[in-house]
């Protein structure tokens, strides 16, 4: 076995991999930051991609705040998870608008809810950002009054708030 050659070749292959990886990540629109936000305590975990334009101001960061909004009855809670997950349990009275079926369902949703409706999106919890993505899609469709409940279904359920 010619270990000297093998080591040289491996350094060559790994070198090309490093150069191409960081070059592509630098120029690609879907590139991510070198260090992401992977601590759940300050908020939703994310790789902090360049394509993310999430605004922290839109986030509802406390479950109790979400409950106050819920109790006022002025907001429509919209579940971004799959229909299967929604059927297994969701915030009572919430509507399902799965991110994966957004294009198929948005027109029906728009007929039901005018653009000035106060919407609160949510998904599972702080490990998912589907609620953020849903907020962006809804914004693109003219909904300007959308907030994101970042603790999601898990946080809501843990507090013993109404589910169905």
């Amino acid at each position, binding site marked *: 076995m010619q270990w000297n050659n093998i080591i040289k070749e491996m350094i060559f*292959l*790994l070198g090309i991999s490093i150069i191409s*990886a960081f070059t592509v990540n630098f120029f690609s629109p879907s590139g991510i930051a070198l260090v992401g936000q992977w601590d759940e305590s300050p908020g939703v975990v994310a790789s902090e991609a360049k394509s993310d334009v999430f605004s922290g101001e839109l986030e509802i960061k406390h479950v109790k705040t979400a409950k106050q909004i819920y109790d006022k009855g002025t907001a429509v809670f919209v579940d971004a998870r799959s229909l299967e997950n929604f059927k297994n349990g969701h915030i009572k009275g919430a509507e399902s608008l799965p991110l994966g079926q957004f294009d198929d369902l948005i027109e029906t949703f728009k007929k039901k809810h005018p653009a000035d409706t106060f919407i609160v999106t949510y998904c599972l919890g702080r490990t998912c950002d589907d609620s953020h993505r849903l907020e962006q899609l809804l914004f693109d469709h003219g909904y300007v009054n959308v907030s994101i409940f970042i603790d999601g279904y898990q946080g809501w359920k843990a507090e013993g708030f109404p589910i169905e």
Partner: protein
Amino acid sequence: MSSNIRTLFNNGWTEIAFRWILGITFIYASYYKILSPTDFAKMVYGYNLFPDVLINLIAIFLPFVELISGLSLLLGIYPRSAALIINGLLLAFILILTINIIRGHEFDCGCFSAKETGSPKMMVVRDVIYLIMGLQVFLFNGVRKVCFIHLGKRI
């Protein structure tokens, strides 16, 4: 029986079949990860084994190691070294999956896109099969078919 297996493993056609299967598999595996590093980063996070500062770096670097090594196997450029890298990756995958199976850690971020395919146990079995292929490619001593550059020599 064992001599039959030895003959099979020393066969040049077996080597090229295994090399191409591994090459195509790893190129394919890297494709989605390169296209959506943010989803892959979340999968890395989900294994709950890496420090926060390393998660994005792994998500950026690993898919390209898979791509370059996969291409290298497919085209027959430094196949032995590429097989060694692939074997290292497979060993790491097997180790990570096994640790999480043993400690009962299963991660589901509840996200639309970042989903693993298949059960962790099936993934370990699959990776062990790939590792056997990778070892054959690495240890093969005969003449390699469709191989352009091998150990510094053009063939």
